């Protein structure tokens, strides 16, 4: 078995909405049917008992080793704790070659699982042992390492519930929500509005106390001290008991509490000094440790925190008691559970020593032995939810503390006997405020109710009703994509939106090109969605990227499919038929938001059929007002766009808008059918995102299809009294549309300059000249350096073949070199002639043509 071309499909893709690993698997002949490999399945199950049932993707199909690989990859992940469920194996047109697709939640874990599954299958085939435990541990460790931590995870989950898109910016906890100008960032439980100054203040305990005191929030008195003696003086001034701790430490390191004697002061000072240079002496507040979580101006959760302890029974040693407690299945090793195992380390031993105990002491029955000073969950402490107990006055103090420091998300540490009564009544106080507080104790407290703090933080970022999305229009199809993309973008800009646009020529933001080359893939789309100046986006969504990586977005507001026609690029990447292509291209329709719109060409049966897969609404467009699909849709009171009396008509129930073709220069007063279709698609898309009609009309009238606005898309020039049209058309449907347009244009004599792209199927190349031969008087075939995998002359031969038996063509020339061919054609033009030049190197060819045109004009 050979596994090649492993791809990570990072967005919705041909197979699933989930992220997935796609691998091309070629098996040996005898591996194609599990039923014919003796003992394979049994051996596999012995090696990996947790492996799920082998189910064929299609009923009754035979299953081979690739299927086993698929199921093993899926279940290895799920046993390691990843919530994955989707997988499938699909045969390709090639014998013994399958595409295996398995969902993943973390790309690296998915890839690793595939590797282990390969080994597993190999071991089962060769009857060798497989170390399952190590494999699962590796997967689990990797997953714990790279997946989001519980705090960040809870916020991301809350965002997903609200339909807010997210993207991780690093391997760490830095996450971006929303798109374009609506993007927001978080880093663990910190949001981007949190100022660096507030964070610095929170880290400076003295300054924090000073500010809280100013605001009338009770805080323990204290001051920084120079040395032990000074600490002793300070302790006497402040009054016992006191606390000694590092000034800007964290996680309770170096903190000693409830100090009453000079000896204790000295010892505590030395202890603190081990961690930081600046040491504080403070009044010790008696009572419990509480953590109050403030988000914005609300208290959203509160927990009482207790340090890890064991209770003596007079029989067991401390060590044994700790082991007993740690045996509790609720206590885990990491962050996943509501309690963590008590660390029995030197800190614990030191704490025991303070109580006159050691690891083998046998505390009497009922004696509480504390194993740490701080109550952090990560070292075995516990948290009890007390959110509903917090007295409003206590909540107010916590909120005031957060606001005074300037933290939007703030963990306020309070020490008091009880949160049921105001702090002032019980000498309680705020001892610390924390930026980026841990959320685990509130999400999954050891005792009591979990609180949806993630949602509280998300609400701080996006008020109810906002999802951080900007309008996204995705455009696909065989022809007209680029013009439609550009026109859609133009209409959105007319509305005053800053538009990000990707197409085969580059990435544009608010009219500026920020990247060039073919940018119709998911990477470019993601870049646009990352750009802070983008209010709306229009993406040309080409097949290559969809196959390679899936979509660059989780869903779009509008999906436009211009046509499928006879298809293009057929035969590449196992997309062999027009049906395959339609399945691929309908991907954007399937991923329309439930409140979104698919704009579909009613006249193309493949496209029209996509409607059934759209989660949102559908707008149909077609030239023919009476096309049955249009007529039905219209009768149902749904949106349609069609042509009637030289007007484009947009209609829904009794509402209708008519835009005269003369006001849409793109259509050349209505003679260019393919441009009318592009205009209708764009109108429908703009309508779907709610652009007002007067703006749509204005935008249509100001859109020109010149080489700067839409290079290589029906650019028309006047050249010495003749008409020259440059176009990038390179498939039968494009040629058909061009031919229709050219026939509508008056001309004495029509000529065409054409080449063929080598990466198309033979019949597609031939078909192009076959169409042309019935319309053009003269054909200039050219061949250029780039033959896309064909041998010299091969394409020309195919083109010539297509011209056999042409009804119109009288003269055929062959020229080597695109520019020479253009020169030849243009030099022969006489007034009244028309020449269609199908350019290949768009930019260079256009500038070559423009230069010639300008020379004569001058």
């Amino acid at each position, binding site marked *: 078995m050979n596994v090649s071309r492993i791809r990570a499909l990072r967005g919705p893709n041909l197979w699933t909405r989930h992220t997935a690993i796609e691998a091309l698997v070629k098996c040996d002949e005898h591996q194609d049917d599990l039923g014919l490999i003796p003992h394979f399945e049994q051996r596999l199950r012995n090696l990996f008992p947790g492996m799920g049932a082998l189910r064929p993707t299609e009923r009754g199909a035979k299953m081979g080793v690739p299927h086993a690989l698929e199921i093993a990859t899926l279940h290895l992940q799920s046993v390691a704790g990843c919530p994955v469920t989707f997988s499938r194996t699909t045969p390709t047109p090639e014998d013994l070659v399958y595409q295996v697709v398995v969902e993943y939640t973390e790309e690296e874990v998915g890839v690793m699982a595939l590797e282990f599954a390969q080994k597993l299958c190999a071991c089962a085939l060769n009857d060798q042992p497989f170390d399952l435990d190590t494999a699962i541990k590796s997967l689990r460790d990797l997953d714990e390492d790279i997946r989001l931590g519980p705090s960040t995870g809870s916020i991301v989950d809350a965002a997903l519930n609200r339909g807010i898109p997210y993207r991780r*910016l*690093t391997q760490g906890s*830095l996450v971006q929500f929303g798109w374009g100008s609506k993007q927001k*960032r*978080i*880093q663990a439980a*910190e*949001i*981007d*509005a*949190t*100022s*660096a*100054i*507030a*964070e*610095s*203040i929170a880290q*400076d305990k003295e*300054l924090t106390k*000073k*500010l809280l*005191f*100013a*605001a*009338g929030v009770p805080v323990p008195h204290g001051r920084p001290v120079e040395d032990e003696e000074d600490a002793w003086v300070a302790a006497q001034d402040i009054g016992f008991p006191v606390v000694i701790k590092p000034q800007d430490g964290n996680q309770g390191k170096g903190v000693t509490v409830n100090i009453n004697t000079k000896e204790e002061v000295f010892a505590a000072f030395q202890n603190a000094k081990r961690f930081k240079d600046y040491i504080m002496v403070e009044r010790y507040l008696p009572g419990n440790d509480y953590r109050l979580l403030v988000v914005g101006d609300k208290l959203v959760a509160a927990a009482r925190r207790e340090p890890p302890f064991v209770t003596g029974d007079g029989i067991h040693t401390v060590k044994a008691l700790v082991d007993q407690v740690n045996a509790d299945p609720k206590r885990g090793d990491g962050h996943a559970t509501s309690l963590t195992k008590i660390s029995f380390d030197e800190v614990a031993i030191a704490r025991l020593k303070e109580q006159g105990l050691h690891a083998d002491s046998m505390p009497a029955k009922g004696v509480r032995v504390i194993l740490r000073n701080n109550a952090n969950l990560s070292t075995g402490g516990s948290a009890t939810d007390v959110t509903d107990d917090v007295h409003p006055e206590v909540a107010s103090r916590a909120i*005031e503390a957060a*606001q*005074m420091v*300037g933290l939007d998300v703030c963990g306020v540490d309070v020490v008091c006997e009880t949160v049921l009564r105001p702090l002032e009544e019980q000498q309680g106080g705020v001892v610390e405020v924390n*930026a980026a507080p841990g959320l685990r104790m509130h999400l999954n407290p050891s005792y009591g109710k979990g609180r949806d703090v993630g949602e509280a933080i998300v609400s701080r970022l996006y008020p109810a009703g906002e999802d951080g999305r900007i309008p996204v229009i995705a455009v696909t199809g065989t022809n007209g994509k680029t013009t439609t993309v550009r026109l859609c973008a133009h209409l959105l800009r007319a509305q005053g939106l800053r538009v990000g646009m990707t197409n085969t020529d580059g*990435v544009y*933001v608010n009219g*500026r*090109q*920020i*990247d060039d080359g073919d940018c119709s893939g998911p990477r470019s789309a*993601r*870049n646009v969605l*990352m*750009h*802070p*100046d983008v209010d709306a986006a229009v993406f040309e969504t080409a097949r290559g990227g969809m196959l390679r990586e899936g979509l660059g977005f989780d869903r779009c507001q509008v999906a436009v499919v211009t046509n499928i026609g006879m298809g293009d690029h057929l035969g590449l990447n196992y997309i062999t038929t027009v049906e395959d292509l339609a399945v691929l291209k309908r991907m954007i329709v399937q991923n329309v938001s439930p409140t979104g719109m698919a704009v579909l060409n009613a006249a193309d049966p493949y496209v029209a059929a996509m409607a059934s897969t759209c989660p949102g609404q559908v707008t149909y467009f077609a030239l023919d007002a009476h096309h049955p699909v249009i007529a039905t849709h219209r009768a149902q009171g749904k949106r349609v766009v069609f042509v009637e009396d030289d007007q484009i008509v947009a209609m829904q129930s009794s509402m209708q808008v008519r835009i005269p073709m003369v006001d849409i220069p793109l259509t050349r007063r209505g003679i260019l059918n393919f441009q009318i279709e592009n205009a209708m698609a764009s109108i429908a898309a703009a309508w779907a995102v709610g652009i007002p009609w007067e703006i749509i009309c204005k935008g249509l009238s100001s859109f020109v299809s010149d080489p700067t606005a839409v290079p290589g898309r029906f650019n028309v020039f006047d050249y010495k009294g003749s008409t020259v049209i440059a176009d990038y058309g390179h498939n039968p449907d494009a040629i058909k549309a061009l031919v229709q347009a050219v026939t509508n244009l008056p001309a004495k004599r029509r000529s065409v300059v054409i080449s063929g792209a080598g990466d198309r199927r033979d019949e597609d190349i031939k078909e192009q000249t076959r169409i042309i031969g019935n319309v053009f008087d003269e054909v200039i075939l050219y061949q250029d350096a780039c033959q896309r995998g064909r041998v010299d002359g091969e394409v020309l031969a195919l083109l010539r073949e297509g011209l056999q038996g042409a009804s119109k063509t009288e003269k055929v020339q062959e020229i080597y070199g695109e520019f020479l061919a253009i020169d030849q054609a243009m030099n022969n033009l006489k007034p009244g002639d028309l020449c269609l030049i199908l350019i290949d190197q768009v930019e260079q060819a256009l500038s070559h043509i423009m230069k010639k045109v300008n020379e004569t004009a001058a």
Partner: protein
Amino acid sequence: MSHPDIQILRIRYLRGPNIWTYRSVIEAWVDIGVLEDFPSNLIPGFYDRLTTWLPGLIEHRCGIGERGGFLMRLKDGTWAGHVMEHVALELQTLSGLETGFGKARETTTRGVYKVIIYAVQEKVGEQSLLLAKELVMAAINDTPFDLQAHLNDLKDTVDEYCLGPSTGCIVEAANDRKIPSIRLTEGNLVQLGYGDKQRRIWTAETDRTSAISENISSDKDLTKQLLKQCGIPVPQGQVVNNADDAWRASQEIGLPVVVKPSDSNRGRGVSLSLKNEANIRAAFEIASRYGTEVLVERYVQGDEHRLLVVGDKVVAAAKGETAYIQGDGKHTVEELIELQINSDPRRGPTEDFPLNSVRLKDHPQAVLQIESQGFNAKSVPEQGVSIIVQRNGNMNNDVTDLVHPEVAATICLAARVVGLDIAGIDLVAQDISKPLNEQDAAIVEVNAGPGLLMHLKPLHGQARPVGRAIIDHLFTNNENGRIPIVGILGSVQTTLLSHLVAWFLHLSGKRVGLACDEGLYMDQRKVVSTDARDFSMGERLLINRTLQAAVFQTSPWHICQDGLPYDRCLVGVVTDMKREAWDLSDHDISSDEKFKSVMRTQIDLVLTNGVSVLNAEDPFVVDLAQYSDGDVIFYSTDPDNDVMKTHRAEGRRNVYYRDGHVVLARGGQETLLFHLDFPPIAMRIKQDGFNLSTLLAGVACGWALDIAPLLIRAGLKNFGQKNSISPPIDIRTIAS
């Protein structure tokens, strides 16, 4: 003959506006003893010694009002206290502080003077005063005095306790816009504005500078990735793990390359333009000392620029200067650096110098730079050979006016992508006046909390008002960071009056702070139950980020003791000027005239758009009206009061009592607010012991604060009532 020492009896730091000036001062009581009999003209050689040590005294105008004024006084004869004042000020000037205000005044005790000097910071003021005493005594007794050593000490104190230059320029710009400021630490954390209108800065960070964005900016690789996604040119590069990896990556990227740590800033550990394997390996070792990860990047040809973005504008741009040496065939590279680079007086070891000096042992990158040109510290380059020593050197040349608008747009986009409101962006470009896509150019770094000094003190070209730009970013044109502040001064029922005014403000929907003699209140909550009229209590209200208005009761004693906690107020109230009501003996306020200079402080602080509320029945109070920059509202129980008549004739506002009615009058226009027989209000007066005059003062304050008459009336009705919305006070207790 030797004169006995001047005695400094006491030193007070008046932090807020005081009887001398609006600004903070040191007030020292100085006993010059027998020197009272020896004015300056009677001490031989004193003038010469003093002016030799401090030639700058010629700039002191003193009372004369012209240059050399103080020296004239010194020649003609003036007393030691006065001389100390000028010497202390001159010492502050010499230690780099702005020249300030000073005064010396006799007290009622012979030979004892009050010496007042402007002091931006307490410790600095105190030290300069003590130093002034030493210096004056040395000049008097003709003993040696090591001025330079003492000045260095003073400069150290200035460095330790005063704001750094970046923060300083921002605070100065705030002052220019009349935005108040409070230092929150001994460091550079400063609050601009008061209460809920405040903003905070910490050097060149603001409270809008996102902590996450700062983290992003300190991760160079992530920053580059984000910028690149948005189409901003960045040098191609990669993170490398070891020296081998660095060399491999360099070959992949193409030489020359830059090697730098991914998470340090200010050029630490960065080596530029490396062309060979040995240098690249060495540069890796240097970089790995400064950061957790090391980046190798394509070396971009061009000059380093630093562009400062504030808000969404490029407000300053500086171009780096390359430091190089010229061989002479005699000296070693090391010597040439001393001779040709470090000899520049602008170079020095500290931040005060505009340029850093270059010491090869502290600058491994310079060593690499020199080695990459085929030399080392000990080589003796030949005559005419020039060697580059430092490329990423100091940003000396202001080029703000040259920045092409498209470059500025891209730079602002970079700051936005990272999410910083203030950013220093490092750009390598050949010509900053041309669009970036027309040249080899790249953004190499985005820095949070950028230094401002290079823009404030460029060596070449114009200084840029970057402090002002930051202030304008924090406060729009019509914002000044102020909340309504009411200051109340007098001896009769001012506690009650403060509560009443705070109550009106509360009812108008504001969260109000109140500092008075029986406690400190924040939004109706009593936080402190002792006298809260001192400076630090009052300041707590201004620091509180939630309060929207504040009322301060004060006394002449507190004004003398600390100065007032706020710089200006919207409403200043003086109810009476009974000198006998106050014991001010410990401040030597012993005449009506001095008493008035204390009391006028309250009215001096009234803003031009503010109002002074004055009791028209007290002629001394009425006299304060002349000091009010803002409007004046008089109040009186007598509708025919003469002062009010004149005031009314000018079309201005009065509040008075007539025929049972409380009347608001503007010129001839009258509004009858309520009748005193109205039961709840009658009760205020009869049972709660409210003086009619206090009630009128309260009404006048309400009017001065633009509180609707209906609300004032309603407020009076339920003020102090035993119901849930009333203030938590017992009116009868505080009224008595």
